[in-house]
């Protein structure tokens, strides 16, 4: 039963990745922590491995739809190791409860961002105002 729940959350995380361009970790981590009995740190580490493959397949599909600027995507990836090293070090140095609260905060921030985007006027209608503000 736990496996089915974890798999369902995995599918939903992948779906989220295809829809909004994230890796799905926001659902993989709770799936691993709640249903597969991993600690928060281990769940986050294991989630990253799943994300690699989800992002590869997602990018491949999105490229087929003409939605990937490959060069800039790879530049973003190539320039990230400093930030990654800092984040991994910190996640192994601070208490798990703090990580859980951080993760909850991140989820709320993403949610607010999704709602704001969903309720914003369609692209084009606000373009003139945005350029004027610059």
């Amino acid at each position, binding site marked *: 039963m736990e496996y089915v729940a*974890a798999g369902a*959350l*995995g*599918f939903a*995380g*992948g*779906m*989220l990745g*295809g*829809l*909004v*361009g*994230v*890796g799905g970790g*926001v659902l993989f981590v*709770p*799936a*691993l922590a*709640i249903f597969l009995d*991993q600690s928060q740190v281990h769940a*986050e*580490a*294991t*989630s*990253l*491995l*799943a*994300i690699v*493959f989800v*992002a590869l*397949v*997602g*990018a491949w*599909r999105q*490229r087929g*739809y003409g939605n*990937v*600027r490959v060069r*800039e995507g*790879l*530049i*973003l990836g190539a*320039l*990230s190791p400093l*930030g*990654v*090293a*800092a*984040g*991994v070090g910190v*996640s192994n140095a601070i208490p798990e409860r703090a*990580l859980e609260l*951080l993760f*909850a905060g*991140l989820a709320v921030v993403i949610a607010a*961002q999704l*709602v704001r*985007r*969903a309720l914003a006027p369609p*692209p084009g209608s606000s373009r003139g105002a945005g350029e004027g503000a610059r």
Partner: protein
Amino acid sequence: MPRDRLLRLAAIATAAGAFSGLLGVGGGTIVVPFLILWLGYGDREATGTSLAAIAVIAAYATVGQAMYGNVDVPKAALVGAPALAGVVAGAAVQQRLPERAVALLFAALLIATAVELVVA
């Protein structure tokens, strides 16, 4: 590529990398909005390019976490295999549906996840 654009990409990459290593996510949360707001990407373009970046960012972070012995490959497969089907379906749906309805649904799901993490 203009230096200004490269510097902006570098800033986004560093922030996304830090989030990824810290929280076990891919960094798309950072990448997608900044590509749209800062580099003039269209919505779908931002999500597709974000996935390409995430593949690289998460690979770095996975290696980092594996050095601490924290990565469980079988459990990653249990969650990740269904997720591969999910991402193919999600990308297909994204091309056909207005993003906003789906985005609101997922926002609710994220809030539920946050509550669960805080309460559990």
